[in-house]
């Protein structure tokens, strides 16, 4: 025991007291995560980490440090996905120090060894924290990508008329996606009218307006006409007070008005069917004939 570096002596000590330390470590971690994982699972994970820590401390092989970091990465990513808080994740590593300290407290001659060990655990804790936040950032990026995909449907309203209902805040990335999708759909379906409905857009500032104008200009270059609909009262006020000019782009209050305009441009007319009581039917069924003379329902 009195030969070798503090690291190897500590490694020997840890190897000798393996069961006790892991047992106490598991207890501390399980208490920290409040029953979200079982004790057996935690013991399994910590057992693997523990043997890696011992290998790193003993300095016997060079791969141990990398392996330990990879194992911690994996653990932190799992914790981040399962919704643990950062401190709950970091406590998993830091409580190893506490577990060892409780054991080592009465052996006064191991102080330098304990300090070296403590430094190692601190490093590992910081590493855990970094891995945890990297995993969380990845999750957030994935989610916003998924939201982008979901949030831009292009729907067909009529033959040759398509609509893009926009919901949520518009930023450059999203507008770009909307523009591309709208133009692709225009080309794919051969539609020559597009309605951009902004009922679900909470605020329109100069940037958003600029994006909308660009989209309309690009659609015009393809030979399609665009109408902007669903401008709410507050949005209208903002647009006017910001001095935004929509120029010769048609704007309508509701999607229905925009559809009516597009139908008119397409040369289509919606007429009300003349539903009357069928004169020939005793049951009083409805009949589609506009007049008695054309009714073909047999009595």
């Amino acid at each position, binding site marked *: 025991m009195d030969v070798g570096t503090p690291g190897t002596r500590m490694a020997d000590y840890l190897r000798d007291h393996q069961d006790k330390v892991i047992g106490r470590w598991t207890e501390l971690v399980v208490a920290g995560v409040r029953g979200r994982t079982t004790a057996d699972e935690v013991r399994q994970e910590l057992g693997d980490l523990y043997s890696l820590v011992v290998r790193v401390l003993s300095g016997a092989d060079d791969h141990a440090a990398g392996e330990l970091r990879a194992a911690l990465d994996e653990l932190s990513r799992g914790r981040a996905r399962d919704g643990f808080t950062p401190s709950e994740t970091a406590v998993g590593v830091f409580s190893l120090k506490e577990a060892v300290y409780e054991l080592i407290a009465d052996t006064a001659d191991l102080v330098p060894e304990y300090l070296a060990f403590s430094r190692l655990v601190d490093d590992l804790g910081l590493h855990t924290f970094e891995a945890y936040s990297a995993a969380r950032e990845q999750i957030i990026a994935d989610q916003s990508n998924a939201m982008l995909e979901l949030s831009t449907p292009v729907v067909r309203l009529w033959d040759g008329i398509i609509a893009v209902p926009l919901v949520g805040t518009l930023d450059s990335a999203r507008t770009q996606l909307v523009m591309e999708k709208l133009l692709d759909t225009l080309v794919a379906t051969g539609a*020559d009218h597009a309605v951009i409905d902004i009922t679900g857009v909470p605020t329109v500032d100069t940037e958003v307006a600029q994006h909308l104008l660009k989209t309309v200009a690009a659609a015009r270059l393809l*030979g399609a006409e665009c109408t902007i609909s669903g401008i709410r009262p507050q949005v209208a006020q903002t647009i006017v007070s910001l001095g935004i000019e929509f120029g010769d782009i048609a704007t309508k209050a509701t999607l229905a008005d925009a559809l009516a305009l597009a139908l008119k441009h397409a040369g289509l007319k919606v007429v009300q069917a003349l539903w009357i009581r069928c004169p020939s039917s005793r049951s009083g069924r409805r009949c589609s004939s506009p007049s008695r003379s054309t009714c073909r329902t047999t009595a």
Partner: protein
Amino acid sequence: MIRLQEDLADELTATGAHGVIIDITAVEIVDSFIGRMLSTIGSISRLFDAETVIVGMRPAVAITLTELGLSLRGVRTALNAEKGLQILNGKSRPDG
């Protein structure tokens, strides 16, 4: 592009055509020069009393032209050659 302008002007004088359709379906990349040339062709054709319709523009091309701030004034656009012909035949809507 310059050759195209000359050929087009010659052809317009020879035939007395009243419409020009430029199909740019196969054009994948544009720059400001091409964008300006398309407008110029439109202006030249108008001198011969012919209307120009550019058809088959790709979405990426449209986005590029918009980003360049070119809106091809004086030139009409249509999704495909069929619709372009409709415009030239006066079947399309009266406005725009």
